[in-house]
């Protein structure tokens, strides 16, 4: 007789583990199934973990979790071919408890987090792929895995299987995502001695820095690049929507190669040794792409539900919070012995009342706008660089004249009206 659990969670990423952890802590009989060799083995992330949502689950987690560095400085670069316009914030208050956010290596963090769920009582099974949900009379009653005798049953199944979520697609919750709803990101972990990192980024041992790079990092396509500091390595990566990649006929690794050899970036990684190369999709469809998230006996969380804020590169926190909300609904459903769609819809409601959907709604037009009007990345970034160069070059021209010249250059390149239009549109998209 196959076993029956209270809840089966598919996928031990931040979303699934957070759900499994919370359910187990509340005494439910939880089975967490992960296809990787261990949680985190295949998981990719630029590497910024936010404190708040993690703290909700495990207070003071920074005292024991395998974190890399607390981020004390965030830089933003508008990068052109041979120049960069940079701004940012560095604050020592972020370097002390309770910190703001952290760089992490997912391979280590996910393992640790899953261990916490196991300690709380969840059963974790790895190297096992869930191939489909078992549906009886319109209700999800369990999952089928690729193992012999591979069926397992549960009152409710939580799908935390990440961006592609084949499982919720099989259930008809969403269609294949369009190429403009997902970004393809490639990244590398580059090993570099601690001292070198500290010197190059102007940091102490337990301080981290993140750099978000716009403009030439994606050869002007919609997307961003990043460079984050770990303890003894850097995470460097670049992503653009799949549609831009197709349109520009780019290969992802070529883009990463281009970035690594960019004169503004190269000195940071020089002498480093590539330790890992990873590629992954990010759901960037935002608000409009969020699929059905609750059905009869089933709930969808994290990337599988498209819960990512691409503009602020927040994903893991939304994953964790949605996992928590799902757990709360499951615990309640368990108490009442009711796993119907209407009961599980409480999760949907909680999700829509949380910061997650509210944030996604706020930016619902952003990606779309930038995708449709490539001038933001292709033209404005170089223009801003030229402007800065002009402004800061000391050549005897009065500053007032320089400003005039800059404005003139901009408007002559794109026309006054169109510049204003662009600015208004961008402001509307992110306001």
């Amino acid at each position, binding site marked *: 007789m*196959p*076993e029956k659990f209270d809840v089966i969670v598919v996928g031990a990423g931040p979303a699934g583990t957070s759900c499994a952890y919370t359910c187990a802590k509340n005494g439910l009989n939880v089975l967490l199934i992960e296809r990787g060799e261990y949680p985190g083995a295949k998981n990719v992330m630029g590497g910024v973990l936010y404190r708040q949502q993690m703290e909700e689950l495990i207070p003071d987690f920074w005292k024991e979790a395998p974190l890399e560095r607390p981020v004390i400085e965030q830089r933003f670069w508008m990068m052109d071919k041979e120049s960069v316009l940079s701004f940012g914030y560095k604050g020592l208050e972020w370097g002390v408890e309770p910190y703001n956010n952290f760089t992490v290596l997912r391979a280590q963090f996910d393992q640790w987090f899953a261990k916490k769920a196991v300690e709380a009582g969840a059963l974790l099974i790895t190297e*096992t792929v869930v191939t489909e949900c078992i549906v009886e009379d319109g209700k999800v009653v369990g999952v089928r895995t690729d*193992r*012999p*005798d*591979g069926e*397992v049953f549960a009152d409710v199944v939580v799908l935390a299987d990440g961006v592609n979520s084949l499982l919720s697609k099989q259930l008809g919750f969403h269609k294949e995502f369009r190429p403009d709803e997902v970004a393809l990101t490639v990244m590398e972990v580059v090993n570099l001695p601690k001292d070198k990192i500290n010197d190059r980024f102007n940091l102490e041992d337990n301080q981290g820095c993140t750099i978000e790079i716009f403009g030439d990092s994606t050869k002007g396509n919609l997307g961003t690049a990043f460079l984050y500091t770990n303890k003894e390595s850097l995470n460097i990566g670049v992503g653009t929507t799949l549609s831009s990649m197709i349109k520009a006929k780019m290969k992802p690794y070529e883009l990463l190669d281009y970035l690594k050899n960019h004169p503004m970036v190269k000195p940071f990684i020089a002498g480093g040794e590539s330790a890992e190369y990873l590629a992954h999709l990010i759901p960037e469809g935002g608000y409009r792409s969020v699929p059905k998230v609750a059905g009869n006996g089933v709930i969808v969380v994290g990337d599988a539900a498209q819960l990512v804020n691409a503009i602020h590169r927040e994903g893991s926190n939304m994953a964790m919070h949605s996992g928590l909300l799902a757990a709360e609904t499951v615990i309640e459903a368990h108490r009442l012995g009711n796993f119907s769609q209407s009961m599980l819809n409480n999760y949907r409601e909680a999700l829509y009342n949380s910061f997650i959907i509210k944030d996604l709604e706020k930016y619902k037009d952003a990606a779309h706008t930038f995708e449709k009007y490539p001038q933001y990345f292709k033209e404005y970034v170089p223009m801003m660089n030229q402007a800065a160069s002009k402004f800061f070059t000391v050549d005897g021209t009065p500053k007032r004249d320089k400003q005039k010249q800059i404005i003139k250059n901009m408007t002559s390149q794109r026309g006054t009206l169109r510049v204003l239009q662009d600015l208004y549109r961008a402001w509307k998209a992110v306001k």
Partner: protein
Amino acid sequence: MHIVVCVKQVPDTKIIKINPKTNTLDRRSAPAILNPYDAHAVQEAVKIKEKTGGTISVLSMGPPQATAVIKKSVEIGADQGYLISDRAFAGADTLATSYALSKALERIAKELPIDMIICGKHAIDGDTGQVGPGIARRLDIPPVTNVIEVTEVNEREKTVLIKRKLTNGYELVQSEMPCLLTVEKEINDIEYSPMPNMISAARYEPIIWAVDDLENVDRSQLGLKGSPTVVGKMFTPPRPEGGKKLDGSADEQVSQLMDILMEKKDLFTLQSTK
């Protein structure tokens, strides 16, 4: 039939990186795994048990997190597992390892007599293959190393028929039981564990023993103290002296090479086939 399989947790040397400056392991990059040969050893025990019935135990020595390889063994089909873990075991070479494991095996045998012990051919972190034969000597049972097939297990006669790999072929050996086998990878294919095994493994809590849980232990034979060998120095392998690069166009280089080869008479001769 009670089979005990000795299993070791090792860093995955396929992925392992060495820091060229300090010559130390970069353990960040290397996940700890069940020694691949030991996985085949457990699988072979499962195959034998399918025919004879009985119990499969696994035994490991290592730090507390080595319970992971015991759970992994339960996934493959072991029934139970013991980890001996104690600071006193730390730093053991093969001699001290076989001593500690043999003491644990004596205790296991008290609970349920052992018919067969299976080890991997070697552990991929040390590549020595010395622990298995060492255990056999200490327990005074016959070892059969480099096993590529367990042809027959005769429980009534207490004998096994085994194919053992040699440099140029193999031999067919009959051994009395109890005995100790060390197995090659080609002995079997690891099967994909069924879901119920996975669930049992996830639930399984290995039994952990410290030195004091074992009987008649001479502490001076344990760990670093009981290890006659020490690592002197580590170095990157010396590269042999490089030779000469030829130069000129492709044709020139090829004809230079032909001349050199023809001059070196002892390299080859032309034998007339006419």
